[in-house]
């Protein structure tokens, strides 16, 4: 049985390594701005840093490489894989389309024909099977290691919240790079950072639930891929609509963007707590 102290030590080492990579990324920002090659190499290392950190932490603490959740566990879990594909797609579509619909611009959605939507959904389905592997670099660390160590220390709700914030903060170098390059203002950076923090904290609850249900990180990898790629697909369909140039939606409609993820966070947090209760009862 792993004690709380051991878990805290492992988590501490893991977070230290992850944030060291983050600091390295920020320090190299100027160099990355000057050279595409440097940018590419550092970006690749950075995007795999959670997985690298988890592997280093496992070696340093003599934990070993068991329970990395690398089995796919497909049998009996196909519905969770389908959910990993479908839910982010629906949620992201709602995030982008709800503000457009509630502000009365339904005519902008003429790109969303049945054939377009179906072909995009099928393309994403096919690509999620072969192209999502790069996200293993993140999921192996966040869901495959950090959450496991955090849950005995902070509880389920605490892990969703703190884990989500850590995950969001890890993206901070990407948010701030625009400001460092002089392409965006500091208030824009703050807006994108806090927006990402809120969204990833909410989405993290779903990923945590998926990982615990299937005992595998692969559904989370697919869900994460869908979360990233659905945005592009929805935006490309929106771009086909008759959107006048230099138009912006009212500020209050922006709140609608966060609503679908908030609903998901609440639902999956409740499901996680229910599962926890069940586990405690059987123990």
């Amino acid at each position, binding site marked *: 049985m792993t004690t709380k102290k051991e878990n805290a030590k492992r988590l501490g080492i893991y977070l230290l390594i992850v944030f060291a990579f983050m600091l390295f990324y920020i320090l190299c920002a100027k160099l990355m701005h000057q*050279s*595409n*090659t440097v*940018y*590419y*190499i550092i970006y*690749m290392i950075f995007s795999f840093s959670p997985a690298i950190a988890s592997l280093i932490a496992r070696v340093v603490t003599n934990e070993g490489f068991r329970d990395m959740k690398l*089995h*796919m566990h*497909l049998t009996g879990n196909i519905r969770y894989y389908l959910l990993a594909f479908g839910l982010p797609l629906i949620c992201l579509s709602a995030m982008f389309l709800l503000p457009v619909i509630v502000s009365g611009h339904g005519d902008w959605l003429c790109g969303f024909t049945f*054939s377009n939507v*179906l*072909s*995009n*959904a*099928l*393309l994403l*389905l*096919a*690509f999620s*099977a*072969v*192209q999502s*592997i*790069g996200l293993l670099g993140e999921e192996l660390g966040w869901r495959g290691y950090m959450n496991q160590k955090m849950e005995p220390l902070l509880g389920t709700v605490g892990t969703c919240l703190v884990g989500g914030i850590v995950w969001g903060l890890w993206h901070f170098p990407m948010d701030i790079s625009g400001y460092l390059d002089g392409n965006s203002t500091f208030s824009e950076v703050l807006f994108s950072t806090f927006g990402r923090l809120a969204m990833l904290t909410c989405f993290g609850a779903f990923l945590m639930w998926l990982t615990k249900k299937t005992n595998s990180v692969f559904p989370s990898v697919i869900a994460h891929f869908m979360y990233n790629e659905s945005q592009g697909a929805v935006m490309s369909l929106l771009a086909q609509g008759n959107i006048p140039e230099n138009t912006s939606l009212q500020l209050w409609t922006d709140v609608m963007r966060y609503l679908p993820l908030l609903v998901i966070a609440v639902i999956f947090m409740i499901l996680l707590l229910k599962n926890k209760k069940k586990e405690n009862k059987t123990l």
Partner: protein
Amino acid sequence: MTGLVYKEWKQNRWFILSMILCGLAPLFVLLLMRGEISNIGNAPIRIGGLIAGFLVAGALQMLVLRGDDRKLWGYWITATPEGYKGFLRVKYEMIFAMVVLFLFSLQCVDRGYCAVAADMGITEIEEVSGIAVPLCFVQILSRAIDIPFVYRFGSKKGSIIKMIFMVTGAVVISVLMILNAEHFDTVIEMCKKVFNVQNSSLILSVCLVVCLALYYLSYRITCRLYLKGVEQYDH
């Protein structure tokens, strides 16, 4: 199941890791033919390398099936708790993982090359790994056809029988085309109607998903045929 994964890793780790090297194929070809870049152009050489990489990767993916066509192994694995279905599932998952690893390596190398080229001031460079994604599905489809033959007839006999099937199919299609030569124009017109600009992305996406579905179907077919195949293995 962990035991089976361990067995496959111990037995085939060099084939699995070689997928990363296959992803470097466009770069190798580019280095070998660097004198021809000014004549042929950068992209065609890289695409040639990419196709060469696909062919080598495909051959290596088939090599992981070698050595399993033995009666004793077949009976033994059937008697284990995972059974032959578990064994075949791990094989299918491993080959799929090899395809994915190859694609990932190919894309990483290609993007890296483009980044280096951009730093060298070459502005009209384009990523060629976009072609790799559809080719990757072709590879999945090829494996979906290959694997049942290997397990039903053994690796040597299986490839010969598959070849006979393929040749027969090609001959039948050619004969049908010759016999219906007068209707050829209507067929082409029909194809043009179906594969128009509006439909093409939908057809492509359906084809990609069908490839994945066929790969799963291939697993189910292999499960059905495996024990019949074991009875016929030479030793």
